[in-house]
């Protein structure tokens, strides 16, 4: 009897501890994920001599690896998602991704010596971690950037970037809502197409 109890306790410790361990290190893993992503972005995307096409392709790859683009895109479209047709949704997702790639390619091309440091990581909700970081500039104060990192079945994906308390996805959602409210979903797609055309010409 006693031996059974001891065995049970032993089994409990054996099985329970890896779980407890996983939960505890989750925050650290999310922090490491963000630090690794930041380091990779700075080493592979910022070189001046990089051709624009190559840089854009690398940004796209990094985006796919590290960001939950479908979730972000859907959130940004807001409640109109429910009324959009399947064709509109897929066009929107392509245009949305192209817009992000264009925006960030330009940003990394203008890189001027910033460095990147993860400060802390705190759990937020059941699946998310909020990883706080600082972008240190050569000239001027540090910029505070929080990354909302979601654990999606073992792989981490960024679902929001919060710069100085301003959520980029929330701002973009409100921005797009301005267009959808006045011009509808087709109007939004047209504006995004025009943007993409302008970028391509440059």
């Amino acid at each position, binding site marked *: 009897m006693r031996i059974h109890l001891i065995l049970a306790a032993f089994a409990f410790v054996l099985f329970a501890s890896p779980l407890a361990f996983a939960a505890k290190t989750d925050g650290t893993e999310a922090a490491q994920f963000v630090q690794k992503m930041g380091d990779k972005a700075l080493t592979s995307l910022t070189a001046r001599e990089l051709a624009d096409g190559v840089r854009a392709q690398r940004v796209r790859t990094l985006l796919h690896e590290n960001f939950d683009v*479908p*979730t*972000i895109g*859907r*959130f940004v479209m*807001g*409640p*109109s998602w429910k009324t959009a047709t399947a064709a509109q949704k897929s066009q929107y997702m392509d245009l949305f991704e192209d817009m992000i790639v264009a*925006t960030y390619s330009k*940003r990394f091309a203008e890189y001027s010596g910033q460095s990147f440091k993860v400060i802390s990581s*705190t759990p*937020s*909700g059941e*699946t*998310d971690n*909020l990883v*706080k970081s600082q972008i240190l500039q050569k*000239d*001027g*104060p540090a910029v505070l950037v*929080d990354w*909302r990192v*979601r654990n999606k079945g073992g792989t981490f994906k960024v*679902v*929001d970037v*919060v710069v*100085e*308390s*301003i*959520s980029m*996805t*929330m*701002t*973009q*959602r*409100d*921005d*797009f*809502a*301005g*267009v*959808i*409210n006045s011009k509808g979903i087709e109007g*939004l797609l047209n*504006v*995004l197409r025009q*943007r993409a055309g302008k970028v391509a010409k440059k």
Partner: protein
Amino acid sequence: MSRAVNLSSKIMTIALCAFLVLGTASCARSVSPEAGYKTGISDPIEPFNRGVFAFNNILDVVLIEPVAKIYNAIFPSFVRDGVQNFMRNLRSPIIIGNQLLQFDLKGAGVATARMIINTTAGIGGLVDVASAQGLAYEPEDFGQTLAVWGMGDGFYLVLPVFGPSSLRDTGGMVADGLADPLRLLAHNTDNMWWYYTRLGVEGLDTRARLVKAVEDLRANSLDYYAAVRSAYSQKRQSLIRDEKAGDSAAIPDYGN
């Protein structure tokens, strides 16, 4: 002259009371996620706001932004930081007062310690010695105090020159101005030019720090007005909550 000033400050007081009453009346936030998307701040006078916003934008592009860029280019960052530190230190009485009104005794203590340390060891406020000691700057104003007391935004309001605000925050700004001991000092010694210069420098310092952010938002937003309104509303909410961690927007899990 002094009668005219008296009268104008009376008008300001009356206007302020009107703001407070109206603000309380329109506390309720109109956010209904299902029936057509609305942003976090209600904007019933959007056409008017868009008009003022367009005017501000022109003023910014032709005058304010170029001046801010020249300011950034001429002065090295330690000089600009000195200016910011000095302007922040001048706001200390207003910050301490608002922390007390928000019953944030710890915040009031920090702000008081900051003022004493930075005014003395920080050479009249030019150096932020206190921050290095773990006493971080925390901006407070009467708009935030009203929010802590439970008042809603009222509605979004774009002020000429001053830019994005809300009914509540505009009232708060007027109240802070009226109560500011430095304004009273300037007024009583007939040195109001000094007070207006300070407002101008504060504005320049703020705008100069936002050069990159504004360029980004202008270039990357589809509806610049809506993007600025969203950013303003989020920033204010964060200031009201004193920037507690982990409060940013929850992104739903769509199961994809």
